[in-house]
């Protein structure tokens, strides 16, 4: 299977990429690692006229701590590959959940190519990293020729494969609060095979719960979080994890099974995170 023909450009700066995006709009697609868009193009489910390759832009490839003291966070360039995230000392020390989740994405080959920004931009509700960033309370930094804006991940996704990102915008950075290595966190990913997409997955960090594949977008288990805040037991709080969710049924899971898995995985993740 091969894609429909397209034009290809490899701008040498983010500004160059943004200018091209602005010019071509929805006829163009951004290519970073390519592991979300190329499979779709090979199956001819997408046929962009222009592919803008930002995969080599060093200005998008970094992991660092930004800000000062209490007002500081981990900033990760959108072009940073999963492999870099999973093996980064900074990530391991400051947001260990993110390293652990990155390690579960796809398989090693995919992690060598796929990027954090690409994963977030693709907006697949079965993706691991969006739910992790959601649990972390992260922020997506978008840039366009019109300027730069920061969108909390809680307001970023609007549906399956869709977000508030405008056609002329590019994710340039992802910011996540520093949780520190001592925080309680866990990621429970339920799959048939190791490298399958999650049937359901649950990311927990410091009492916040992000869920994969429990609706058209990554979701927070709000009822669980509220119950925990009010002092409920893990078992009681986890039993509320599927409240307000609307998962789909498919080959591997019915709607009801997904809801059940969300409760089970939430209980396990909370238990692990609590060090119980």
């Amino acid at each position, binding site marked *: 299977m091969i894609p429909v023909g397209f034009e290809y450009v490899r701008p040498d700066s983010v500004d160059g990429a943004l200018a091209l995006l602005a010019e071509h709009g929805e006829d163009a697609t951004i290519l970073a690692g390519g592991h979300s868009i190329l*499979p779709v193009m090979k199956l001819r489910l997408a046929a962009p006229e222009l592919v803008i390759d930002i995969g080599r832009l060093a200005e998008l490839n970094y992991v660092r701590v930004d800000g000062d003291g209490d007002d500081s966070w981990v900033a990760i360039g959108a072009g940073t590959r999963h492999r870099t995230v999973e093996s980064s000392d900074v990530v391991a020390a400051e947001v260990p959940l993110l390293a652990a989740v990155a390690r579960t994405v796809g398989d090693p080959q995919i992690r060598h190519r796929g990027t954090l920004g690409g994963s977030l931009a693709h907006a697949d509700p079965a993706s691991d990293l969006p739910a992790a960033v959601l649990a972390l309370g992260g922020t997506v930094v978008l840039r366009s020729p019109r300027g730069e804006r920061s969108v909390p991940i809680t307001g970023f996704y609007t549906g399956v494969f869709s977000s508030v990102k405008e056609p002329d915008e590019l994710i340039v950075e992802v910011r996540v609060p520093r949780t520190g290595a001592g925080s309680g966190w866990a990621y429970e990913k339920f799959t048939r095979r190791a490298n399958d997409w999650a049937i359901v997955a649950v990311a927990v960090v410091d009492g916040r719960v992000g869920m994969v594949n429990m609706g058209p977008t990554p979701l927070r288990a709000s009822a669980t979080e509220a119950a925990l805040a009010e002092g409920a037991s893990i078992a009681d709080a986890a039993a509320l994890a599927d409240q307000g969710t609307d998962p789909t049924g498919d080959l591997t899971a019915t709607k009801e099974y997904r809801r059940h898995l969300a409760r089970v995985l939430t209980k396990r993740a909370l238990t692990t995170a*609590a060090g119980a």
Partner: protein
Amino acid sequence: MKIQMTVNGADTSADVEPRLLLAHYLRDTLGLKATNIGCDTTSCGACTVLMDGESVKSCTVLAVQADEASVQTMEGLSPDADSLHPMAAAFHAEHGLQCGFCTPGMVMAAVSLLEENPRPSEREVREGLEGNLCRCTGYHNIVRAVLVASGQDPDAVTGGGHAEEAASGGVEVAPGFSTGSGA
């Protein structure tokens, strides 16, 4: 579009369609047929090659993305059949291949795995090869081969059997899907 890349140490260049997949550049443009294509969905890993030293699935990389890169295929590992690279030699000694179709990708994934984890446990080998499907061997001898290539005795390295050593203790769950801190 004109591209150039180093493949198995040799300079190559061609004027290619942007949509040309790296796998087809290797197979059809350069005639390096060891790299096989087994699926359409980045699932099987038969097309795995090293790009700038890391394993990638060449059916999901455009040739233009590999412009100026250094690529290595299985042909580049061993100079000839009489002097096999240690990984290839281990696959031979341990009968890690049958029909041979997954083999070039499997060998390259295994080389990349040891590059990142020189002495893996059995479980780490199994998980490190999760992106490569084999239908013949049941992986038993592939896993042995990779352990041998890492300088370990496969009969001695059990890696804790099948059960995963979860990052957290305490909670009893079936292996295969738990990651956590245990705070």
